[in-house]
């Protein structure tokens, strides 16, 4: 009996051996999902290896409970990707594999596809090889159908019905044997359609240069940095390369940082490639939709796969190109479980497959920028805006020490909004804080509403009449009086999107104002509808958080104003200024993308800060160079490779003690620096106290080698009540 080595979602870095069933299980079944007994329960896992012997004594080996034949096995390349992630991030392989699967395929029930009605059946390789003589001669319908399929390769449901009433049932049977594939639509000449769609704009010289540089080496691995200012038409470069991929019948994987960006990009792609099967994969889909999309990608039916970070683990048999848009974005990094960076995994995947990967950004992360100027990545620049007459917006700072704000808005800002309204142009007020006010304050005794489970303040959500923790999701009603001193006159303090919305509605009663933040876009399709309203110019003033900052193209938007950005200047995070700059550059880039000149107003108390000065000059390079010099002096990434060991426990002492132990048992080799354990920047989260230990080295390979050994030691360390995790290349502290 074959031994199956199964990956299970358990926090132990090992595969589990099981006995295969008597029916034949072969190497072909690597990548297939199985149900196996584990302790007192059954668990779903994936066969990673099929072996002939096990180091475990055979009486102890349990047989698998069930083998899933509902979907084809995961391809070997994907399993290799999982193995890489497990090795690089030092995370148990079973957890990596199960984290990579869509939730629906992780469940205990076989996956039944329930998407659009099936219109066509196509013969598979298995079907072609199938021997007609296994069908009993009396089953005429089966025999005829198979013969017909072998002749034509495919059959539509209508044709099948003409053949026999019973044909649809027989085809279902064939499908379960993997003789035929079910298709939801009739394959038209999709490739031809790729050329005959919405008008294709003429490339600017810079865009043309970028395409011409990439195309000759499109069949080999390279990491390209497409560094283009906002509005320079990076998307058009992607579209040209995707067109090329479609001609070569290869798949393109496009990763975007946020779910909210998928509808807009999806619309652009669909308009350009109307007949192409495009799927979007993100956590906003229901489990069946996601699993359905994943399977279409796996079968090679989907040519363009658009998704958030989780889409990097989609099986893609004909992968030809990977695009990571807004590569600097933090949301490519998963912050729990397998703490992977989808951008970095994408680069590995491109190298593994031998295809190019394109990192697009107006403000690349310093890591990427450093690699680009060193020549490890190939850099392509788009220095000016693509639309004719569109120039970069004029950026100005409003000194709020002079121009006093009222309800967060300064007089110059109000008059700029007035002007835009009068000209019938759209404006955007950017404030990266949702809710009404970040603090509920008692002015008599300075009590503030704090989260019981996190080291954070509760945010006032006036509209929902709730105090909410933005970290753990806890919510509660407003207290009627201050719990400390009893004063009833407690008041919201500071500004969030809801409060700005209220103030602007009062100031401009006739303007059409729309607030766009996670609360207002929570309902399914809400964001899509809002986008349509904006595009249809039925909105005058947009108030938004960072949701609005990225990637969107609103041609009629001429004014962007930024409130409350100073806070990030004082952050203790060494990446704060890099992020603030990227974010402001992004949001500033929303202005003046069409023909109308744009203007950006930043309310600040520090108009002379080098960051704002660089922003006014649209000078990413000089700021990046300055920051790189600082990072080099301070020995921060990208000049050093870092790893965090996180520990969470009910009390901070437990967490720190565990980390001290972890530090103690490490071999402390040369070239590896281990710092003392410290409480995290957010010392309490969801009722757990958090601390970390920083490990760094100037050599990635030495660090990896050390981690491999340390991880095994850590696994053996007593960790009662402590939850710990390794975070390779951390972005948050």
């Amino acid at each position, binding site marked *: 009996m074959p031994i199956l080595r199964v990956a299970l979602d358990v926090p132990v870095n090992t595969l589990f051996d099981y006995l295969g069933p008597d029916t034949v299980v072969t190497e072909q079944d690597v990548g297939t999902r199985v149900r196996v007994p584990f302790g007192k329960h059954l668990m779903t896992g994936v066969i990673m290896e099929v072996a002939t012997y096990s180091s475990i004594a055979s009486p102890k080996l349990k047989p698998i409970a069930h083998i899933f034949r509902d979907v084809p096995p995961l391809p070997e390349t994907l399993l290799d990707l999982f193995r890489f992630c497990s090795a690089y991030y030092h995370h148990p392989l079973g957890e990596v594999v199960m984290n990579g699967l869509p939730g629906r395929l992780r469940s205990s029930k076989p996956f039944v596809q329930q998407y659009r009605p099936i219109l066509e059946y196509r013969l598979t390789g298995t079907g072609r090889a199938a021997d007609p003589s296994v069908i009993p001669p009396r089953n005429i319908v089966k025999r005829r159908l198979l013969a017909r399929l072998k002749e034509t390769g495919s059959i539509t449901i209508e044709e099948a019905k003409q053949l026999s009433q019973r044909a649809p049932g027989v085809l279902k049977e064939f499908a379960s044997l993997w003789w035929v594939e079910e298709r939801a639509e009739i394959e038209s000449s999709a490739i031809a359609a790729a050329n005959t769609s919405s008008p294709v704009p003429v490339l600017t010289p810079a865009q043309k240069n970028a395409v011409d540089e990439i195309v000759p080496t499109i069949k080999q691995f390279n990491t390209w940095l497409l560094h283009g200012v906002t509005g320079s038409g990076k998307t058009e470069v992607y579209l040209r390369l995707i067109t090329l991929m479609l001609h070569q019948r290869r798949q393109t994987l496009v990763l975007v940082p946020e779910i909210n960006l998928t509808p807009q990009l999806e619309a652009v792609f669909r308009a350009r490639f109307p007949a192409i099967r495009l799927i979007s994969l993100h956590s906003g889909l229901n489990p069946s939709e996601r699993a359905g999309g994943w399977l279409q990608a796996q079968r090679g039916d989907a040519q363009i796969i658009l998704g958030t970070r989780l889409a990097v683990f989609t099986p893609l048999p004909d992968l030809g190109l990977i695009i990571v848009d807004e590569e600097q974005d933090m949301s490519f990094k998963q912050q729990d479980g397998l703490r992977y960076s989808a951008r970095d995994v994408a680069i590995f995947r491109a190298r593994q497959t031998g295809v190019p990967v394109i990192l697009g950004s107006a403000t690349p992360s310093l890591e990427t920028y450093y690699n680009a100027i060193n020549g490890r990545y190939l850099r392509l620049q788009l220095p000016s805006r693509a639309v004719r007459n569109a120039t970069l917006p004029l950026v100005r700072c409003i000194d709020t020490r002079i121009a006093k704000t009222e309800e967060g808005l300064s007089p110059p800002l109000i008059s700029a909004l007035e002007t835009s309204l009068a000209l019938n142009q759209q404006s955007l007020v950017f404030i990266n804080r949702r809710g009404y006010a970040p603090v*509920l304050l008692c*002015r*008599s*005794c*300075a009590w503030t509403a704090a989260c019981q489970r996190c080291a954070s303040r509760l945010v*006032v959500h*006036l509209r929902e*009449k709730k105090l909410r923790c933005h970290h753990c999701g806890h919510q509660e*009603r*407003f*207290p*009627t*009086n201050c719990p400390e001193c009893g004063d*009833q*006159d*407690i*008041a*919201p303090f500071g500004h969030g999107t809801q409060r700005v919305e209220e103030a602007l509605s009062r100031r401009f009663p006739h303007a059409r104002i729309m607030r766009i933040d996670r609360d207002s876009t929570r309902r399914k399709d809400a964001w899509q509808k809002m986008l349509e309203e904006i595009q249809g110019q039925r909105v005058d003033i947009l108030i938004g958080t960072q949701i609005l900052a990225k990637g969107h193209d609103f041609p009629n938007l001429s004014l962007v104003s930024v409130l409350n950005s100073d806070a990030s200047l004082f952050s203790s995070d060494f990446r704060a200024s890099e992020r603030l700059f990227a974010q402001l550059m992004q949001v500033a880039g929303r202005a003046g993308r069409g023909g109308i000149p744009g203007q950006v107003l930043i309310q600040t108390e520090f108009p002379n800060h080098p960051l704002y000065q660089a922003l006014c000059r649209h000078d990413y390079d000089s700021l990046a160079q300055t920051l790189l010099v600082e990072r080099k002096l301070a020995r921060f990434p990208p000049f050093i490779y870092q790893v965090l060991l996180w520990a969470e426990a009910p009390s901070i002492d437990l967490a720190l003690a565990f980390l001290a132990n972890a530090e103690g048992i490490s071999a402390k080799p040369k070239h590896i620096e281990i710092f003392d354990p410290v409480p995290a920047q957010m010392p309490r989260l969801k009722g757990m106290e958090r601390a970390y230990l920083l490990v760094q080295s100037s050599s990635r390979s030495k660090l990896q080698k050390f981690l491999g050994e340390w991880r095994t030691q850590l696994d053996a360390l007593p960790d009662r009540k402590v939850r710990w995790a390794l975070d390779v290349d951390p972005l948050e502290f």
Partner: protein
Amino acid sequence: MNCNQTAICGKIVEIASLRYTPAGVAVTEFKISHVSRQIEAGRSRQVECEVSAVALGQMAEIISRVTAGTAVKLVGFLAKKSRMSLQLVLHVNNIDPV
């Protein structure tokens, strides 16, 4: 040490518009302008002052409906305007027409 009661007559001036705490309690901030003659060390003297006042709940709603200039007698207690402030505010518990 629990004594904190102030009574004062005057005209209500500068009534700010009614606002509500997040929990929905009405708040009205206003001022009362006081002019009278008082006895001090056995002699009569002129007194003029303006006192900041605030009312919560039902009292806030009553005061928000009073027209500016109305003469009233207010009874309440004194408290600091805010934690860092030295200014006192009369918190009104009772209002009577004069």
